């Protein structure tokens, strides 16, 4: 074949056991029958070779599988896991093929080869490249002149479509059940029989779906393809010349990685809010240069890999910003084993935008604040450095929450609404409601009643609250409330409600 023959060619790659393969890769020497089972019907959807050897095939009920194998292991099918794995496979292929589309319904990928003619001159070179990239993955590859035929595994490039489709059953073409039933009742069970009927007649009898299907078979209608968009992945890697036991031995290399990162980000006008430092120790068996492919599976990193996540309160790109935070994060860290390789991984970048200048605070001051918050979060943990977010809620405890500081929070001041009336008065301190014995308190002033909004159902258990200020035995002022019993509001004299302390104002 020459380059000319790849023009208009589509490659379809089908991955029919993605979840099972991923599971098997985590248990490399396992001889046990492994199954992936659909949770709602308890039927086998994927089976490994050991299971197939025992006669367990997809479609078999799990109870029947237990009869055939004593020591089988199974996991439930998770479509989201397969989607994630499909994305990872697309990431791998994207290094060689730019024009990819995802088939999320059937766990497949389309590769448009017309645009790749200069890179991959022959079909065999394409096949070799794919097999190299998907070395640890089972797949089925088929070439054809249009996406649907490639998916069905029908190659019509060397012969006429009618001959190529000879005897191909319609039941495996993914048609809707009712349409397939109608076609069967008309005696149409293969594609070649279908193609011999004039399209207008079929359209009149069976509607638009069958017309679309035929036009797609003939390549006259292109199906809607989900074009693969690569994520902004950055992976930088360095091999160490000697085993490193402590952080001080990694400083130079880490600085060099961060310098490369700064250069990359500066060129692309991007910034990062999170980076991962991947440390490979001598127990790691794989190739550290390929770690980005495992990016989504940090939780299941293989043996010999330590991953350090470093978050920034504000998007950064400069070495000075990233290195100081990295230093804080790692200076007291003890490695599980000596480090032999180091990688720096960035999952997502964002466009670097200049922050608007504030009148009361210089940009330099704001940058200094962001750096300070980064440093605090790195040393203390993101959860210990929080900011206050205000909400709309009918209860005081719903009107604000503490959340870890993020980039968007810096420079945002919060305040109460100065136009609110005295009825909306609140104390400066809020507690989680704490039951109290009101006999130890001296109540002052008039109560302020907070009622559940009318749209809350009675079953919600929400009840009226009467808020008061009260003095405790030593003279401190508290914000207390009486919580009425939701069921006893009809007769207040017998209300068995409870008093709570909810805040302080002294």
């Amino acid at each position, binding site marked *: 074949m020459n380059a000319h023959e790849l023009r208009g060619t589509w490659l379809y790659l089908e991955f029919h056991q993605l979840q099972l393969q991923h599971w098997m890769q985590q248990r490399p020497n396992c001889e046990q029958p492994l199954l992936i089972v659909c949770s709602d019907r308890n039927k086998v959807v994927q089976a490994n070779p050991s299971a197939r050897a025992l006669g367990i095939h997809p479609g078999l009920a799990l109870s029947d599988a237990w009869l055939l194998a004593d020591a089988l292991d199974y996991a439930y099918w998770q479509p989201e896991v397969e989607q994630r794995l499909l994305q990872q496979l697309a990431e791998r292929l994207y290094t060689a093929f730019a024009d990819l589309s995802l088939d999320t319904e059937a766990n497949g990928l389309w590769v448009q080869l017309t645009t790749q003619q200069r890179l991959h001159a022959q079909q065999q070179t394409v096949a070799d490249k794919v097999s190299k990239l998907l070395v640890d993955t089972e797949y089925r590859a088929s070439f054809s002149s249009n996406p649907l035929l490639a998916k069905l595994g029908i190659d019509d490039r060397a012969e006429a479509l009618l001959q190529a489709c000879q005897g191909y059953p319609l039941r495996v073409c993914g048609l809707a059940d009712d349409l397939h039933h109608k076609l069967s009742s008309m005696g149409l069970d293969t594609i070649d029989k279908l193609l011999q009927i004039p399209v207008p007649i079929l359209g009149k009898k069976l509607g638009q779906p069958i017309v679309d299907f035929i036009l797609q078979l003939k390549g006259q209608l292109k199906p809607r393809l989900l074009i693969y968009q690569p994520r902004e992945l950055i992976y930088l890697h360095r091999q160490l010349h000697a085993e490193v036991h402590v952080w001080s031995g990694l400083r130079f290399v880490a600085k060099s990685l961060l310098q490369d990162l700064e250069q990359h980000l500066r060129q692309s006008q991007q910034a990062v809010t999170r980076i991962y430092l991947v440390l490979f120790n001598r127990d790691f068996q794989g190739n550290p240069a390929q770690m980005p492919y495992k990016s989504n599976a940090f939780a299941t990193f293989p043996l010999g890999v330590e991953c350090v996540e470093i978050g920034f309160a504000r998007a950064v790109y400069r070495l000075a910003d990233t290195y100081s935070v990295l230093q804080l994060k790692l200076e007291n860290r003890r490695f599980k084993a000596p480090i032999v390789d180091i990688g720096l991984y960035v999952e997502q970048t964002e466009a670097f935008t200049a922050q608007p200048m504030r009148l*009361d*605070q210089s940009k330099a*001051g704001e940058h*200094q*604040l962001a*750096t*300070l*918050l980064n*440093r*605090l979060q790195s*040393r*203390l943990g993101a959860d*210990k*450095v*929080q*900011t*206050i977010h*205000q909400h709309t809620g009918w209860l*005081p405890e719903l*009107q*604000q929450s*503490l959340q870890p*500081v993020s980039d968007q*929070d*810096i*420079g*945002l*001041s*919060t*305040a*109460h609404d100065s136009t609110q009336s*005295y009825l*909306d*008065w*609140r*104390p*400066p*301190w*809020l*507690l989680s409601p704490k039951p109290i014995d009101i006999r130890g308190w*001296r109540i*002052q*002033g008039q109560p302020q009643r907070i009622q559940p909004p009318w749209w809350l159902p009675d079953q919600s258990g929400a009840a009226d609250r009467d808020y008061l*200020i009260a*003095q*405790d*035995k*030593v*003279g*401190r*002022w*508290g914000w207390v409330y009486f919580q009425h019993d939701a069921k006893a509001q009809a007769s207040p004299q017998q209300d068995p409600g409870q008093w709570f302390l909810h*805040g*302080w*104002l*002294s």
Partner: protein
Amino acid sequence: MHIQLFEAATILRCIIMAKQNLVSPTSQLLTDLIQRGQVFRASQSATDGHSSAHCQANKLSSASRQHIATGFAGLDHALGGGLALGKLHEFQRPADFYGDSQLVQAAVAYANSAPVFWLNPPAQPFVPGLQHAAEHYVLDQLSDEEIKWASSQIISNLGHGVVLLWHPQPDVQTVRSWQRAMQQAPEALVLVFSGLMPQEARAYHTRVRVRLHAATSASSSIAFDVLKRPGGWPVSLDAEKLAVHR
């Protein structure tokens, strides 16, 4: 101050010997006293080049330094107008919420939309109850070591802003680390809320002990013992009515 008679006599002897150039300021005796926090090192006056007592230097500079009113008239008067910026202020209370709120409101008012750092607050600051806008950052559940590190970082990098810090018993080293950090924060307002502390020396600018008068009337009152202040002797102030905004 609980300086024993012997130590007081030693200090006096040192001063006399220093005046007569018989002892060097770096002698062992003085060094020991300075390390124990019982003597402050004299500072150099920028104007005339002669050394002057620490309190004198403070007295001279306090006139030009900005002060933040606490809302307690007697306390503000005793402190020369309120809490000085760029200085460390300690409030000792027998328990939380003994006048904390009014001091906090005054500090947030000074922030004027600038950052306010709350370190180990005794409860959640409630924005609908704070009377002025600010950027609030809450650092909670910090250990003693963490609070020492975090507060020093915040104070020295804050610029214009407020640090409100709750620590039951800060030790000498912790207070000194804050004081060192304060030298880089001339526009920061830093309030330390502690428990009742022994009266040994600490590197605070002002130290105030809060007393809450027994709640015999409808409105409770609050009194202050100023244990340390710039340019003045310790003083006990009359009780003031505790403002409860409603």
